[in-house]
């Protein structure tokens, strides 16, 4: 699937995958993060779209792996709860240590400055939606289920999912198309995953954050007064920001 495929770019003689590798440890994300521009050009590109006006960032040092975000995502979009239909994928290895890479992996769409998914789409179904802050979105009426977007997404697993019932692609729309959510979604609205996350490990931001191939490097721990008071580390190295020591919680635990 996506990670193994070499996607050749016409006329340039190198693949996008190679381009990503060529960018070394920094990768496409960090590169993109450095360009705070409304459009983004690769060497071969005639394909340019305006930057998304919204992004999800996730702090894996906070994430508890509860999958509430996944259940909420499928609930508000499809009216049913399913991990397979969630646009955000959390892969939790409960036996891995705190801080260990892959202990909990949060896979959310990056709303790429250069969305390979949209570029690969032959019908224009996958597009930047001007009515929703240029979020990369599938117009399912136009989707023919060819799965090229799924394969084109450079991340593993692909951030575009397959909806087996409709036989069409779907992806994070920052909750724009949410018939089962009372609040308005989308850029400027409520994101279901952000709203339900009990550790506040997910946040919506308007500017593309600095990122690496393994994810955005964000610390949402020190945003929360209670985090350190709960005895949980606030710094990336596992240490605590200086706070008053909390007494044990008499909740019977």
């Amino acid at each position, binding site marked *: *699937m996506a990670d193994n495929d070499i996607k050749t770019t016409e006329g340039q003689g190198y693949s996008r995958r190679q381009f990503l590798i060529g960018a070394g440890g920094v990768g496409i994300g960090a590169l993109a993060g450095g360009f705070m521009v409304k459009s983004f050009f690769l060497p071969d590109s005639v394909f340019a779209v305006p930057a998304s006006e919204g992004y999800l960032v996730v702090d894996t040092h*906070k*994430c*508890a792996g*509860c*999958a*509430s975000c996944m*259940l*909420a995502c499928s*609930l*508000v979009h*499809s*009216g*049913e*709860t*399913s*991990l*397979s239909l969630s646009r955000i994928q959390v*892969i*939790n290895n*409960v*036996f*891995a*240590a*705190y*801080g*260990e890479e*892959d*202990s*909990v992996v949060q*896979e959310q769409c990056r709303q790429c400055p250069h969305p390979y998914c949209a570029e690969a789409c032959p019908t224009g179904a996958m597009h930047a939606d001007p009515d929703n802050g240029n979020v990369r979105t599938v117009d399912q009426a136009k989707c023919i289920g060819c799965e090229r977007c799924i394969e084109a997404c450079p991340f593993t*697993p692909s951030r575009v*999912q397959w909806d*087996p019932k409709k036989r069409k692609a779907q992806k994070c729309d920052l909750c724009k198309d949410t018939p*089962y*959510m*009372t609040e308005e979604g989308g850029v400027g609205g409520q994101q*279901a995953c952000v*709203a*339900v996350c*009990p*550790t*506040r490990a997910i946040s919506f931001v308007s500017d593309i954050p600095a990122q690496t191939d393994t994810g955005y490097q964000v610390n949402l721990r020190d945003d*929360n*007064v*209670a985090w350190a*008071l*709960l*005895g*949980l*580390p606030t710094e990336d190295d*596992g240490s605590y920001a200086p706070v008053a020591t*909390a*007494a*044990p*919680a*008499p*909740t*019977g*635990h």
Partner: protein
Amino acid sequence: MAGGYTGKILRIDLTNKSVSTLDSEKYQEYGGGHGMGSAVFWDLCEDKTVSGFDPKNVVTIMASPFSGTLVPAASGRTEVQGIGVQGYPIEYFTRSNFGGRFCGHMKWAGWDGFTVEGAADEPVWIDIRNGEVEFKSAEGLWGLDAVEAQEEIWRIVQNGEEKEWRELGKERTTQRPAVLTIGKAGETLSRTAALIHDAGNGAGQGGFGGVFGAKNLKAISVLGTGSVEIADPKALMDARLWSMEYAVAGHLDEDYTPLGMGSMFGGAPASGAAGYGPADQPKSPIGCLGCHKNCRARFASAASNGSSCVDYFFYHVYDQAAHGSYTQHILDATEALQRYGINSYQAEGAIIWLNNLHKEGILGPGLEIDTALDFNQLGTAEFAKQFLDMMANGYDVGEALHEGVAYAAEKWGRYEQDTASGILPLQCHGYVQHYDARTEVEWGYGSLVGDRDINEHDFNTLVFWAPSISALFGAQPACSADQLAEIMGEKLSPYNDPMMMDYSDEGIYSESMAKLVAWHRHYTRYYKQSLALCDWAWGDFFNEYGPEGRGMTGEGEPKFYKAVTGIDQSFEEGMEVGRKIWNLDRAIWILQGRDRELEVFTDYNYEVGAVPGYTTYEVPYVVPMYKDGQWVYESAVGRMLDRDKVEEWKTKFYTLEGWDPATGWPTRATLEELGLSHVADDLEAAGKLGS
């Protein structure tokens, strides 16, 4: 069909290595989980008097309509039932449940529950991927501990593709399968053996690990890629967001002042484990599926990941005594407990007892009870591992303890003596004391009239922990005794009697206390064990974030039930379902031999005064009392129970429940009122119907 159900139960016949399905619709009136399990057990287990180890024992593993949904602290709990092997002197039909994500995958795979019947002729594991069920040889898994076995099954099912979308029929998933397994203790048919799932989730009480071992069943793996249908998705999302306001999760931006907090739903991330590791070891929370609270922890050493309070309590005091504070030893000891798959309560009771016998000069190298254990090493991880290895493999003191503490005491000829002095902390029916029946009576009574240590903390948090911890720190509990009585008077419907909170010397034998115990039995049977609301979050009575300190109970349960199923059921109607399930369970125990005479505590409860730290809670017992016309929190330390008054209380309780006071057996009228006339017929045929 109502939302939240798949309509099918998978029957797994190990003897014939075949499967069939059972329509779950006729059991849906019981909610799901426990109620559904009891009703299915009643129908499928033909001889309810067999041993738990007998192939004819039927084990039910049930999801609830909330499993795999967004109902907070309800999505991830799976209920296990069948004839357990820990009950003493009778192996009662019993229950246990575990968190994680197993029931979610059951539902996404298309099942409301599993039954495990018969016994395989060689070790097997069961590989369930949506509707596909395969019996596989467990040759390569037998002997692996509970973590290794899961990792091996993950590897097999994921086929090496750890983060890819993998196809399962027409659907796709990135997820690991959910595995329920046994460790060494289960393989050797120990009565202390637990079922283990993911990190730190276990069904320990009842000894179902040993039951799996007897069935030659190493593990069940389930991976589902489907959906749970929700009757009113918008209402569910709204209800979830509404409930967040009652939780720390909705208040992370505010100062957190744990002291004086008492609410269960409001509890904090990692609070179930954070206190028991080395203070400087980095950690983050781990939660069950869909949880709003995420009470367990992931440690930088990975040792004991996902464990919670009681998993540490078997050993934490010894680590602290030996090393001055909690160290890596307690994390490593707990990790070993999980890997062997041993019920922590059994390990806890056993160590307390052995240590007491050692102090009395009865147990030790070359003594009356000879052992290689070196008590100078108590508190080290090495001691814990050696002891757990003995328990799991049945040698040294483990030769007897493999059968659990009650049967071991009988084997060593010490049961009467040591439960009278109290050096062996067995409260009743062979279960280790968890909370003290002498002071926190709703816990003791609930266990006495039931099948096992109840392990239900909803009242416990408010009547014991909050006032006792506050007393320890010289603070006021967040909920005053006055307010507590007022709130309970409002919420404990249909009784609505504030005197139910009176834990004074008179109050504990009163009619009101009978109502409290009845309310608790009915509430937990339905809402916690059938709809699978987590014990660590519900019922929500007092809540520091709620309006005027009011929690969600009474309002929250029906709101979530309606959103998921589409069925408008009042809170009181749910309580009646709980009463029905409770009576059905009671009928099974009676067929197994239960009567009034067997409902007695062990002697120490009547003969020795309660002291803090009797098991492992080194905290004074401060409880609510109504004294001289006022509600107060006061210490109940030193109290012992009065035999005659407990007997009088039993008569009040049986009468309230519509049971024959002479025998404790339900009457036909009671059973028929609950729609259980077929149960009355069976009791009558066995000569065990109350009159």
